């Protein structure tokens, strides 16, 4: 079973040289720490920055330079800054190659719910609906089951949707799964020490298992 850093590490293997990538808040942010050397990627922050650098050194924080999580950051050689309409323009026009974000639920036809829990204070969808509606390649990073032990990979989402038919791949503490075009989660890899039976037990949606399922290489 993987911890949050393990999930991030596995997702980092999906990031290819030359990609423009948008990382959501939470586990996706950690992915930046595991992108292998020699792989050149540009991180987009949807408030209006391409080429997001690391946090500044203490004392060098600039209130005018933050990321979409409102954290102080830095720019890099080759960074560019633009307004929020252009930022979502490049997302809508599919110039951003890969979007990695968290989720509360994913359905077997690729629907995602990650912004609202009825009865709880709603903070808003931020840029999540724009990202999932437009991105060609969406990877969800999340726990396989919720705190109550219920599966988050479902036949249909029960929470209000963020987007429909959009998630392509899911990485959890237990497994890597592809969302099939015609519906269903195809099991691609098991986390170290996790059995297919454990994954089956934690997956409420249709799970397809073909042949031997390899263990993740981290």
């Amino acid at each position, binding site marked *: 079973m993987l911890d949050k850093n393990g999930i991030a590490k596995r997702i980092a293997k999906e990031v290819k040289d030359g990609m423009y990538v948008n990382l959501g808040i939470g586990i996706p942010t950690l992915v930046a720490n595991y992108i292998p050397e020699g792989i050149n990627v540009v991180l987009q922050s949807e408030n209006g920055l391409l080429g997001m650098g690391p946090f500044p050194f203490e004392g060098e924080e600039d209130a005018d330079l933050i990321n979409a999580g409102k954290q102080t950051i830095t720019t890099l050689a080759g960074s560019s800054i633009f307004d929020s309409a252009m930022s979502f323009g490049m997302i809508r026009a599919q110039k951003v190659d890969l979007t990695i974000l968290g989720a509360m639920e994913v359905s077997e036809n690729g629907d995602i719910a990650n912004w609202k829990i009825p009865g709880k204070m709603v903070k808003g969808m931020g840029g999540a609906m724009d990202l999932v509606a437009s991105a060609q390649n969406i990877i969800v990073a999340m726990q396989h089951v919720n705190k109550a032990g219920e599966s988050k990979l479902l036949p249909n989402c029960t929470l209000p949707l963020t987007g429909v*038919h959009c998630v392509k791949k899911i990485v959890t503490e237990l497994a890597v799964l592809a969302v099939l075009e015609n519906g269903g989660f195809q099991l691609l890899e098991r986390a170290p020490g996790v059995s297919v039976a454990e994954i089956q037990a934690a997956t409420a949606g249709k799970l397809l298992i073909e042949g031997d399922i390899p263990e993740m290489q981290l």
Partner: protein
Amino acid sequence: MINKVVKDADTAIKDIQNGQTIMLGGFGLCGIPENCIQALLRKKVTDLTCISNNAGVDDFGIGLLLQQRQVKKMISSYVGENAEFERQLLSGELEVELIPQGTLATRCMAAGYGMPVIYTPAGVGTEVAIGKETRIFKGKEYLMEYAFDADFAIVKAWKGDTAGNLIYKSTARNFNPVMAMGGKITIAEVEILVPAGELDPDQIHTPGIYVHRIFQGGNYEKRIEQRTVRTK
């Protein structure tokens, strides 16, 4: 050259009326028009509809206008960090319309480009789509969203000149340029105000035609919401 300079924030916002709709630039607390927010607090204008990506924090930014009950409705994409906001929302004192961030930015932009609507895939199949006209283009479904219709836009830039031309700094640019374009009357506060001719025309982000009033602000706090650092 037309001179757009007004004396101060109070003069710039003096004709904003109760019940009007205003766009307020900024993302989180970054690039917000601090001086004009203070002037709105002094003027005590009420029943405002505020179009702004966020709603500030309890004791800074738009949060201050909420504390004084000056806001009737917020149109935002994310309103996370504000206890008074939550209280007013749950008690029904405050109306809130949540819309996707890209839709928010592009509806501002459309107003500044003179386009009545945009089509966006954001929100298709979700509760955001309820009651909205949709169209299929090249096999994909889009929502029709209207350009905003705001009485005023209030923005913050780094540098400006007396002709109203604006240059923003770093990610404090965010929503400011599109809101500057989108207001019927646009008010810009700047950290540095220079005579026309001192800014390079090639470097202007917002042309002065969109800006009706400009003044040099002061006492910028520029509060940081999430101070994140690394050690040397």
